[in-house]
Structure formats: structure tokens, C-alpha cells
């Protein structure tokens, strides 16, 4: 086993994300964030078949929505092995695309394919966990119907990284079976909320996408909202009311430092990074009761005004994934609606025409849809539409459902769900939830405090 430079790991990573099969002794090892991944040889009897099984992922996400893939996830061993199996199972189950089945799959031999087939399984995982301080986790993914190994990898990591190993294994399973990159080894930035409804203490926070490993990043002294991940760096743009001057700041996850972004007389808010990470678009209030959209360069702090709307509110800007267009929220026609303009401003056209008010649009990283919040008769909906405004579909509703943010593969949306309060603030809850873009499967991410303003991270590996 040998370690690689970042560049080498990067190129191997790209290799990993293709649908090729990592088997055989010819493959090298791969390091991700302190976790070593090394291919396992296929068993001799099947080596030939396995190495020609490219393109094994014939099931699409749409098909799996209709018929979740039955997959056996056995215990990876006592103690930590059990916990790893639980995390893998929870990840896969949370998508609604897998039907996780308990069962026995031998870690050191080919499984009994006919018995697995008889149980209804389409895929099966074998795994083992050894070691204490440095943990070695071996996993093999089997295509039960074809009787082939789809993946065989040994991961070595420090014990503290065990959850990440489990998420990476779940990502591999997702990718091998569905042909798309999984989103389990990702994080969600959010606002942790404590205290009474009328004066919530708000803190910038970050957690794994399943709610584990949450960390509070700021003190709670100042109202803090709207975190957004940089696509390229360990940075989060957010709104802080530091010294009662609400402005967009950058929080650096490595140093813990907060730096103001841009110099504006008005309130700057609703930040969103450009896809290449070189700039942040944001909304800035004006003296005449409106708000304009600006782009601020993260390196030079130079700014460009993209809208100049004379008293109307333009806010919640978000780039298309190719960086060519911006979707935003504006009340220029009298009520808040969704518009698209070119990334340099101009060529503005409205895309929302349903009943009620629209807000907080976000463009899918796949480019195919835009998620939004809609308000009608005092109730909130969370929906998606095509970028030309057609095909609007409501995914979920509630007293308040807002602040959508896409998983980096575009297949799920995290959002904030809040309940109404009565006198004394009783009944108010604020949670972060996840729903798939088909609207089939919604679940709340467990957090120890109230939570809002979720922002999904980019892929980590």
C-alpha cells in the first residue's frame, strides 16, 4: 500500500467515479481525507467475469423510485462493524431508492447467489471490520442476479473516521447500482437555534448529512442566517448581524476566521457562490426601499451591480451550474416572483406564473430544475420547476417550508420546516428535512437544537 500525492489521488478519484470496476491487483490505492482505499482482488473463480462487468448499473434512479432495489446489508462485525452497517443501511434507506434487507453474506468467500436470489435480493454487500486505533474495513458489493462482484475495496482509517468510511461505502454502493455519484459523504451547514421564539439565539453550525458530528461554529451573540458553501474551498458565506450591521461574511472552516465580503452601505444578504467559487452574488438593500443584486469577487472584493431596480426588491440570487444565468426573486411586478437573467445582468424574464408568491429559488447542480418556495393563502409549499417555468410540481407543504438547497448530485433537497407558534411561542419548532426531487421520500435530520437555513456541501471526494 502506498500513499499518493493530492494530484494523483485526484486523478484516481476521477477513475473511481466512473462506472468501471475496481478489482485485481493492478489497481493502486487511493487516499481520501485520511482514509486509504485499496481495491480487493475478486475471487479467482469469478475474476474474469467480474472484470468484464462494466456498466453493471442498469437501474436508473427513476426506476428505483418505483421499485426500490432490494439489497442485503449484513453486520460488518461486532461493535464498530455493527455501527458501520447501521450507517450504511440508514444512508441507503434514507433515499427511498433501496430496500435494505438483513441477512448473512460471508466476508471471505463468494456468497450463495441462489439463496440470495430466492430471498428477493438484487444486490448484496459483504463486509468485515478489524483493528482498533487504525480500522480496516473490507467491503464487497455483489450483483446477485449476475453472480458478479461489482466492487471490492479495503478502507483503512483512524477509528475517529469510522462514520466517514461508512458514508463512502454507501456512496460506492449508490454509484455502482444507480450510475450516479452518491451524496452520503457530504455535510450540511445550518443555523442552530435555541431560546424563545421571539429571540432565538442563532449559531452557524455544520453536521454530516445524516445529522451526526454536528459542530457549532459561532458564538450566538449576533443573529446569523443564510449559510452557503463554497464549491471549491472550505469556506461558507453567510449573513451575520455582527455589531448590528447585517452584512455577508465568509467563514473559513480551517481557520475559524470570519471576514466581511464587500463594502456596502445597505444590508448585504442572501449570498450564493458562483459555480467556480471566484465570486459571490448577493442582495444589497438600497436607500429607496429596494434591493439590488451584486457580484463580489472573493479575491479582490471588487463588485459589479447586476440589477438596478429603483425601489423594487431583487433578492435570493442563484447561479445556473454552468455559471451563465442567475435565477432570482423580485417584486418588480408587484409581488415576489421568480426571474432569470444573464450572469452579467440583463435579459430578465419571469418564470413563475402559478398562484401566490414565490421565493428562494435554487438551481439544481444538474441544471435541469429550479427548486423554490411558494406562498399561497398563508401556507408554504416547496416545489420544483423547469428553468423555463414549465413543469411546476409541489413536493411538500407546511406552515413554513423554505430555504431549499440541493444535494450535490441534484437528487435530493434539504430545506427548513417550521411549525406555527401560539401564545408564548408554544408549538414553534424549526427543523431541517430532506426530500428527494420526486417528492416520494421525506425525512427530518435529527439535530440537538432547533435548525434552519440548511446548505448542502459539495462532494467531498
Amino acid at each position, binding site marked *: 500500500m502506498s500513499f499518493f500525492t493530492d494530484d494523483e489521488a485526484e486523478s484516481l478519484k476521477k477513475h473511481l467515479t466512473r462506472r468501471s470496476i475496481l478489482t485485481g491487483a493492478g489497481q493502486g490505492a487511493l487516499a481520501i481525507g485520511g482514509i486509504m482505499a485499496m481495491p480487493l482482488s475478486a475471487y479467482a473463480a469469478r475474476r474474469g467475469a467480474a472484470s468484464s462487468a462494466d456498466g453493471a448499473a442498469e437501474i436508473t434512479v427513476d426506476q428505483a423510485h418505483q421499485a426500490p432495489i432490494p439489497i442485503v446489508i449484513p453486520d460488518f462485525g461486532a461493535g464498530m462493524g455493527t455501527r458501520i452497517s447501521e450507517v450504511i443501511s440508514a444512508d441507503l434507506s434514507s433515499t427511498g431508492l433501496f430496500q435494505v434487507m438483513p441477512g448473512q453474506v460471508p466476508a471471505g468467500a463468494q456468497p450463495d447467489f441462489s439463496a440470495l436470489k430466492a430471498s428477493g435480493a438484487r444486490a448484496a454487500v459483504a463486509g468485515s471490520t478489524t483493528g482498533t486505533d487504525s480500522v480496516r474495513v473490507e467491503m464487497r458489493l455483489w450483483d446477485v442476479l449476475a453472480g458478479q462482484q461489482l466492487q471490492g475495496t479495503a478502507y483503512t482509517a483512524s477509528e475517529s473516521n469510522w462514520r466517514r468510511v461508512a458514508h463512502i461505502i454507501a456512496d460506492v454502493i449508490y454509484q455502482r447500482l444507480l450510475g450516479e455519484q452518491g451524496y452520503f459523504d457530504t455535510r450540511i451547514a445550518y443555523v442552530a437555534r435555541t*431560546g424563545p*421564539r*421571539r*429571540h*432565538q*439565539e*442563532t449559531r452557524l453550525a455544520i453536521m454530516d448529512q445524516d445529522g451526526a458530528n454536528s459542530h457549532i461554529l459561532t458564538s*450566538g*451573540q*449576533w*443573529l446569523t*442566517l*443564510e449559510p452557503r458553501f463554497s464549491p471549491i474551498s472550505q469556506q461558507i458565506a453567510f*449573513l451575520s*448581524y455582527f*455589531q*448590528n450591521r*447585517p452584512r455577508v461574511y465568509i467563514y473559513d472552516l480551517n481557520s475559524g476566521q470570519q471576514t466581511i465580503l464587500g463594502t456596502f452601505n*445597505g*444590508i448585504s*444578504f*442572501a449570498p450564493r457562490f458562483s459555480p467556480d467559487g471566484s465570486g459571490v452574488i448577493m*442582495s444589497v*438593500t438600497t*436607500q*429607496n*426601499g*429596494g*434591493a439590488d443584486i451584486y457580484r463580489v469577487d472573493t479575491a479582490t472584493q471588487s463588485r459589479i451591480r447586476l440589477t438596478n431596480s429603483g425601489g423594487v*426588491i431583487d*433578492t*435570493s440570487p442563484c447561479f445556473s451550474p454552468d455559471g451563465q444565468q442567475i435565477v432570482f*426573486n423580485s*417584486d418588480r411586478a408587484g*409581488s*415576489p416572483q421568480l426571474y432569470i437573467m444573464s450572469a452579467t445582468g440583463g435579459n430578465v424574464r419571469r418564470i413563475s406564473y402559478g398562484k401566490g*408568491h414565490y*421565493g*428562494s429559488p435554487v438551481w439544481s447542480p444538474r441544471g435541469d430544475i429550479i427548486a423554490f*418556495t411558494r*406562498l399561497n393563502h*398563508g401556507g408554504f409549499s416547496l416545489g420544483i420547476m423547469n428553468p423555463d417555468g414549465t413543469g411546476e410540481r409541489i413536493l411538500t407543504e407546511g*406552515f*413554513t417550508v*423554505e*430555504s431549499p438547497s440541493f444535494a450535490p448530485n441534484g437528487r435530493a433537497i434539504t430545506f427548513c420546516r*417550521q411549525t*406555527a*407558534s*401560539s*401564545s*408564548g*411561542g408554544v408549538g414553534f419548532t424549526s427543523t431541517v428535512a430532506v426530500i428527494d426531487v420526486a417528492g416520494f421520500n421525506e425525512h427530518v435530520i435529527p439535530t440537538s437544537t432547533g435548525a*434552519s*437555513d440548511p446548505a448542502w456541501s459539495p462532494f467531498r471526494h
Partner: protein
Amino acid sequence: MYNTILDSLSNKGLASVKGASLIQVKGAFSFDSLQSLPKVRNMKFKAFGILGLTLALAACGSSSDQKASVGEGVSQQSGPVPGSEADLVASAGDRIFFALAQNKLSSEARATLDKQIAWLQRYPQVNILIAGNCDDRGTEEYNIALGQRRSNAARDYLLAHGISANRISTISYGKDRPTVDGDNEEAWAQNRNAITSVR
């Protein structure tokens, strides 16, 4: 619960009190006791949002009892100190209300602002902060701009009636610092406001 006392010039925290005891005002409202803190006398202070100060003001604004003090220098027995926050509340009223999704000043709002103007002319040394707020029936982001639009509307009215721009600061809390609890038409109407406070 923390209350941080801020120096009004540097905005740096001067004191932080954990678990400040709650006291009751006429049994209906409670706020964190600030009276026991050191250095409050002769120091302008702000308790961020409605914690402490604004809660106390809400108590004042919602009842006829103007004896509730918001800091040392105002005794429980005497009326509000001239030029103080409590005096503004008592003499003029500190808040105006807006219709749904609107920033238009109603005749009632203008009447309150007229009284604020007279009061500000009486105390030319006093600077104010106007905070715009919204009900929670809008998105977080849009409502920050809408709240600012409301505080701007109040500010513009004061400017048009001769109050100097350098005496007025504005801020918006969007829907994140509701003035009253509850989610019904009555509560929402009270949460669509612009609240003036002494800086």
C-alpha cells in the same frame, strides 16, 4: 440565556451575564433583570434584539405602567427619564404598523411619527434606530428587504419633517425577531412594524 451589555460607541461587549434572573412586571411580562449589572449608569446600552431591553419596552408599550425601568437611572417610582427610551414610548409611541406586504404609512402611522418628530425636536441630542420587522408569511430573505423597506419608510418620513439624517439609523430583522408570539392574523399584524429605539 446570555445578555451582553454593549458599549454604544465601540459596540464591544462590556459585560455578559449568564442566567440573569427573571423578574415579573405586573405579573404579565418578564424580562432579564438589568438593574443589578455594574456600570449601567451613564452608559447607553443595547441588548441585542428583544432580549432584555425590547422585552422591557414591549411591556411598557403594551401597558400603561411606565414605571418599569430599563436600567439604572430610572427608578421604579418616578416617571421615565426625559429623552429616554421609556420617555419616547410614553410620549410618542415607539412603533408603527403596516398592512400585509406593504410599506405604505397609514394615517395612524403618520400620527405616531409626527409625535416622534416632536419628541426628537425636544431632545436634539438623542439618536435613534428604526428596526423594520415582518410577519413570518414570507421567505427569510425577501423579508429582510421588506423589513428594511419599512424602516426606510419611517426614516424618510422623519427626514421629510426636518429630522437630521445623521440622527437616524435603520436595520431590518426580517421575520427573525417577531415582536409578539403567535401565528394568527392579530399577531402577524403586530409583527409588521417599524420600531424606533433610542441609540
